[in-house]
């Protein structure tokens, strides 16, 4: 009986270790889709589609989808130090710039990152990179390092 518990614990640890630490792959382009939170730090460009809220820092140049405009004005909240929050984004958003800090939380997220930096995928989904790697989002966050193609 004791041996069975040890075996079960060993299998559980083997499965949990990669999920907690996250994968760290390298590639020039990353494409991902899923539900949850996607966080990017680095240099653009990248595009994000989906329904949710977007947070960008001051360095970001943002092109928002047209359908989030209300009364000809974009719904947004400017933080003193943390940049801009777009609480209701639905569609394709383009972000460019250097030293970006971007976070998008929502559903039906699709992301295409052509820049260089680090992406953290938290939730439920799948990703591919230009090195031929496929992987999964995780509840703890899957971290992927991307080298920009120059």
């Amino acid at each position: 009986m004791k041996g069975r518990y040890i075996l079960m614990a060993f299998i559980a640890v083997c499965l949990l270790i990669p999920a907690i630490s996250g994968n760290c792959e390298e590639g020039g382009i990353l494409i991902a889709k899923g539900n949850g939170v996607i966080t990017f730090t680095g240099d653009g460009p990248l595009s994000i589609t989906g329904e949710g809220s977007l947070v960008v820092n001051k360095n970001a140049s943002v092109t928002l989808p047209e359908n989030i405009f209300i009364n000809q004005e974009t719904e947004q909240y400017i933080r003193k130090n943390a940049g801009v929050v777009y609480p209701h984004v639905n569609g394709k958003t383009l972000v460019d710039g250097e030293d970006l800090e971007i976070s998008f939380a929502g559903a039906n997220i699709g992301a295409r990152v052509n820049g260089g930096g680090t992406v953290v995928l938290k939730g439920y989904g799948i990703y591919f990179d230009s090195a031929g790697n496929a992987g999964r989002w995780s509840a703890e966050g899957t971290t992927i390092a991307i080298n920009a193609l120059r």
Partner: protein
Amino acid sequence: MAHSNVTSRRFCLVLCIAVLFIIISPRHNNFFAASVQVAPPALDREYIAFLLGTVFFLPEVIDLTLLSDNTFSIKSDLFLQPATGTYHQENFFLLHAQGTTGKFFDPDFQEDIEIQYDFRIRPMGFRNRLVAGSGTRIFIFSKDGTPPTPERFIYCGYGF
């Protein structure tokens, strides 16, 4: 007399286990019928991965529908475009299926993609006609930058 009964019971038990093992083993055709197509050794690893996957985590919900005319449909909750294809009997317990979604536009990846499925089907419960297993699928992208990428997947569904 009692010792003889115990010995014969043990012998019967060992014989039953041996017969069961030979029937279930995907390589049993090597021993008896070389003409029958043999399942690849990778099947064992796939089956173990499937068992562990269904017990501990399910990375994606993929539903399979088998039809009686040797065709199937398989659909994922992440990729809405269903794949269709055909299957054939590989041995007594296994079906081999291959199919594709064809090229379609994925709004999240913002490009045309195609997913090619290749998997084996093993019945899990005869009463409910449940089938489940794991296989390999290849993602083929249209834009430059992302090469064809294989991935293992786990599915479940109903037979006919």
